[in-house]
């Protein structure tokens, strides 16, 4: 395919600048997002002795629900809870207090608190993923980054289009380093394009949905959108409280009934995951049971029941739902990798790391294509971008690994004394990140890159050690006991540590033996 050279130039400029602006945030989003794929495993890994406790039962969950409803009247209006199952160490229940703030309770803590139980580490990594850890504004920022990411994908594809097919499997090592990095950037970009398009669209949607609805409402929906949303997003019809009390049905009955209803619609393996209960204790109490129907696209579906009698009110289950529910369920499943079996999660993990590499290599390409080949001294912009890339990107890898170590050490101390584990982990992460950025700002980029990669290798290798010291669950013990979720967190950390060490050695080799006139070469001048 042939394009005008002016078009090609315009889109190259566009791709370069959009990529540079969004690239840093996208690196963090992809690295943290790859880890977030395993957030359930992380909750087990964080919670000391979670694997040794007996699995909570429906009766335990019923007890928790009854206690919370008795203790917190505001939860009667609207309360959500997880069904006991393999994915969470503790059954959690959550509601909004009088001020509208979410409260979480477990059987160990019926009073409730504003922190989700045993999830500080996975919450932190997830917050880095969707907001860079910046409260409120961070989500909108990441929404804009998602849009820029989409523009970078379109413009990148346009530039590459003329040589797309003939260069697809070309990876040309050799003296022309720019060629090699360009090939690597292109092949990863093209082969993972469908995933990137999906993430750009669903990422923008997840971050900007509410603001977009507000903007589109008067433009195309005649200001009638807000009234139509409950029917589009929820399953249960809204029933106002009757004002008369009625004896409420049991959790076990809702569980059985929802499976029964799903069977009638041909879904044999529907597994209830969580519920939403409205107007508890009232004659008009409604419960909405959401669960997973394996082997379907957009596996999450829900069944709405009269909470007192168990009478069926409405369903939105795979195969029998309207376009709105099918679309939102599929969009969520695609973004979070919650479909198919465990291989899908591993694929998302690898694609996430590959995406992080794509953004990192984009910055390297920018530096390489502006390299001054005939002089030692490189331009200020090249040096600064090298510093920023090393400090922010490698820095966040170090910071997340330090947060993992801090989690184990703080959880160990929290067994004997009361301390805020969540705050401790967050501080450990952001202080480490700031130190890495500062380090990269002060050292020559090639030195900082090696030092921070070694720091990443060492801290990541210490993750399984901290886990073993704090809980006694060394990874060989986890494997012997069949606790694979613990084992894989530790073993993946070791594999990543090895990867960081290899990158550090490669950087050192390049500094010694690669072309001399570069920010990545050992030289006294930079």
């Amino acid at each position: 395919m042939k394009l005008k050279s002016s078009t090609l130039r315009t889109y190259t400029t566009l791709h370069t600048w959009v990529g540079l602006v969004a690239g840093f945030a996208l690196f963090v989003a992809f690295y943290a997002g790859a880890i977030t794929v395993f957030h359930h495993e992380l909750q087990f890994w964080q919670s000391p002795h979670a694997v040794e406790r007996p699995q909570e039962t429906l009766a335990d969950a019923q007890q928790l629900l009854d206690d919370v409803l008795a203790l917190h009247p505001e939860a009667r209006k609207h309360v959500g809870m997880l069904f006991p199952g393999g994915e969470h160490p503790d059954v959690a229940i959550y509601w909004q207090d009088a001020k509208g703030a979410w409260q979480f309770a477990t059987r160990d803590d019926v009073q409730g608190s504003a922190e989700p139980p045993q999830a500080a580490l996975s919450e932190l990594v997830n917050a880095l993923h969707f907001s860079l850890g910046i409260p409120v504004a961070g989500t909108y920022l990441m929404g804009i980054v998602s849009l820029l990411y989409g523009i970078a994908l379109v413009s990148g594809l346009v530039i590459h289009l003329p040589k797309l097919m003939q260069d697809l499997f070309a990876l040309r090592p050799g003296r022309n380093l720019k060629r090699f990095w360009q090939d690597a950037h292109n092949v990863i970009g093209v082969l993972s394009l469908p995933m990137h398009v999906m993430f750009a669209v669903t990422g923008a949607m997840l971050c900007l949905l509410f603001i977009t609805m507000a903007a589109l409402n008067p433009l195309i929906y005649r200001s009638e959108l807000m009234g139509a949303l409950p029917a589009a997003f929820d399953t249960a019809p809204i029933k106002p409280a009757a004002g008369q009390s009625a004896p409420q049905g049991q959790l076990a009955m809702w569980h059985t009934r929802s499976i029964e209803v799903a069977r009638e619609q041909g879904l044999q393996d529907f597994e209830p995951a969580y519920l939403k209960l409205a107007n508890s204790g009232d004659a008009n109490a409604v419960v909405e049971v959401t669960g997973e129907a394996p082997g379907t696209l957009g596996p999450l579906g829900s069944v709405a029941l009269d909470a007192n009698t168990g009478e069926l009110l409405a369903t939105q289950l795979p195969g029998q739902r309207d376009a709105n529910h099918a679309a939102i369920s599929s969009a969520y499943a695609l973004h979070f990798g919650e479909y198919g079996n465990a291989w899908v999660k591993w694929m998302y993990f690898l694609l996430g790391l590959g995406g992080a590499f794509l953004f990192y290599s984009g910055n390297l390409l920018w530096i390489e294509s502006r390299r001054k080949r005939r002089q030692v001294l490189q331009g200020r912009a090249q040096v600064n971008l090298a510093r920023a890339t090393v400090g922010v990107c490698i820095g966040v890898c170090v910071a997340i690994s330090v947060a993992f170590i801090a989690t184990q050490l703080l959880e160990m101390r929290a067994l004997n004394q009361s301390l805020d584990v969540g705050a401790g982990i967050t501080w450990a992460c952001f202080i480490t990140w700031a130190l890495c950025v500062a380090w990269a700002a002060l050292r020559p980029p090639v030195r900082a890159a090696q030092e921070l990669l070694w720091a990443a290798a060492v801290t990541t290798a210490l993750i399984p050690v901290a886990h073993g010291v704090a809980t006694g669950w060394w990874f060989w013990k986890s494997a012997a006991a069949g606790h694979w979720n613990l084992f894989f967190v530790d073993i993946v950390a070791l594999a990543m540590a090895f990867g960081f060490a290899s990158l550090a050695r490669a950087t050192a080799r390049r500094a010694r033996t690669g072309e001399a006139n570069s920010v990545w070469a050992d030289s006294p001048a930079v």
Partner: protein
Amino acid sequence: MWARATAGIFPGFLLSAALVGLVSWLLPGNWESTIVIGLIAFFPVWIGVIAASFKFANGKRAWAWLSALAVVAIGTLWGLQALAWVQ
């Protein structure tokens, strides 16, 4: 570059909204049944319009074309809605 970029962002936003609205209201069935798909589809449509705005020779043209198209598209949608020819 900036003039074409802002053309894609501002009039391009209105044009993308109107395109999604037209499809949503013209499809058989009522508009409520395509709310979620419309809200998701809006993002790739807008990204496409922003990217396409760089195809214009200069910023002035981009602004003129995209504004005119946005006005026509929104006018058509509002007209159809007012006449109750779509639902």
